[in-house]
């Protein structure tokens, strides 16, 4: 399938691209044919700065299973961070 579905997540943070670090304010999350990963379908995330017109993207293409593991790992890290640092994670 080619899916047109894009889930836009508003972010606060930075990512490192080809020219160095940049602010990112959006993640475009989708599931479709990857461009590079040797998979039939992949979970894609493009980190961009839409405020600046998204001239560059920092992209990943992940298998469905590894994307789920990543999502869980993010939640685990946030939970541990909150416990250790007391931030509002």
């Amino acid at each position, binding site marked *: 399938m080619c899916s*047109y579905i894009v889930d836009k997540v508003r972010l606060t943070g930075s990512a490192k691209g080809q020219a160095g670090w940049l602010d990112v304010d959006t993640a475009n999350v989708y599931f479709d044919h990857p461009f590079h990963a040797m998979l039939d379908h992949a979970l894609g995330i493009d980190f961009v700065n839409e405020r600046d017109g998204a001239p560059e993207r920092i992209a990943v293409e992940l298998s469905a299973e590894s994307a789920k593991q990543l999502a869980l790992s993010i939640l685990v890290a946030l939970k541990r961070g909150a416990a250790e640092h007391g931030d509002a994670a």
Partner: protein
Amino acid sequence: MSYLPMTTDIVSFDGHNGVKGQAYYARPSGPHKLGGVILIHHLPAWDDWCIEACRKLAHFGFACIAPNLYFREGPGSPDDIGAKVRARGGVSDEQFLGDTAGCMKFLRAQPESNGKVAVMGFCSGGRHAWLAGCSLPGFDAIVDCWGGNVIVDDPKDITPARPVAPIDLTEKMTAPVLGIFGNEDQRPNPDQVNRTEETLKKLGKTYEFHRYDGVGHGFFAAERPAYRAEQATDGWKKVYGFLDKNIGPRIKAL
């Protein structure tokens, strides 16, 4: 036995609203009269696979134009350009049809044209091929390779940019259509392919459908894991045969 020499160019065509579009154009070299094919790329990008398929059609004796539906985004890596278009929800059907009409005009204006034109697409391009075949007059053949959303079962897939399910326009289809599908595909799934065929039968349209066991989506793409050599080889033969019959004769090497 020899092989056809080939000429390729990046060309300009009259896109939607009069904007000059960009396309790859491949055809056998020499003083031939050729059937033309408009090859529509899939959503992710105007990518290497699309260009390879365009050259393949030229290699087998047709003039093929593969428009870059994302040319308005300017130059850049095809995957980055595709990501930009995806983030905006893809191109509209209206814009696509305008660009495709321009490609048809381009093909018929070439001195090597035999006057016949087909539209062919993979995946979302298969939907586009169906849409164009029902919306633009003048096609002599349509090739839908596993086009998803020809039948729309989820109302969320009807959007302002894509306001119709192409199946609902089938009555307006005047050219024969070839469909190539994998029986393990989920979009279109076998039930949707069956319902598409029922619509063609009911409306008395001329068609060929070929369904392949053991394959899912995108099984022609030799550099991807979905590639299935046996089914892809047969599928390409079906494509050449169909085009030969409807926009040919194709030029063959001696």
